[in-house]
């Protein structure tokens, strides 16, 4: 049960950063934290007690962990990188329009 508590704490910290911080870069860091917590939880589901990595080159034994979640989170990590890149380019354009990185100072005009 201790193994499942760490990703949940990461998701809680990410939610705190999104809800209570006003700087745009800190909000982007919070979104990245939620993604990291979700990927860590998915990998922890596929763990077998006392097993080695699923690679046959000089393997100590053939009792291996499940390989399917590791193949699934490769795609998820790359999609997280794409989301972070697009959010950072939005932050750069926001700074060019309003002159500040504070999210409470920019309001829709007109």
């Amino acid at each position: 049960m201790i193994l499942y508590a760490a990703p949940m704490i990461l998701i809680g910290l990410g939610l705190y950063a999104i809800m209570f911080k006003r700087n745009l870069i800190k909000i982007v860091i919070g979104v990245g934290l939620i993604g990291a917590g979700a990927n860590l939880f998915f990998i922890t589901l596929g763990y077998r007690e006392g097993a080695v990595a699923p690679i046959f080159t000089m393997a100590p034994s053939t009792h291996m962990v499940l390989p399917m979640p590791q193949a699934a989170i490769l795609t998820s990590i790359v999609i997280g990188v794409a989301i972070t890149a697009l959010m950072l380019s939005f932050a750069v354009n926001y700074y060019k329009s309003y002159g500040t990185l504070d999210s409470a100072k920019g309001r829709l005009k007109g």
Partner: protein
Amino acid sequence: MKEMSVIVKTLAKLLFPFTMMFGLYLVIHGHLTPGGGFQGGAVMASGLALMLVAYGRKRVVKKTGETILPLLGLVLFVLGSVEFSNFALGSHAEAVAFGPNAGALLTAGTIPVFSLGVGIEVLLGLGLILLMLAMGVEE
């Protein structure tokens, strides 16, 4: 922006070829050791980021040019055709001893070709994102 000092520039110039070679090693040995296309491509893009931070945007663009985007489309087309041919012909495999063994490099059919295509595409895609963000930040 201020220029970086001589120590930073010299160390970046020394570390850059080793970083690219390590990334290429991770890509090519993808079917024998932990690694593969995405991991090696990310390491190579981090080498490009090291040169971008140490030398500034103008000198890096002079070396790589602005023609990254058509190369990216070509690599994606090659990737799709390799995947289709792998599906159409059946995955061609050589004989590999069963159970734990020391791996040989020339096995596993079209997996190294696919992995090399993905590695090049990740390097070019992340490099393009880094260059565009560096152009948007400077003023």
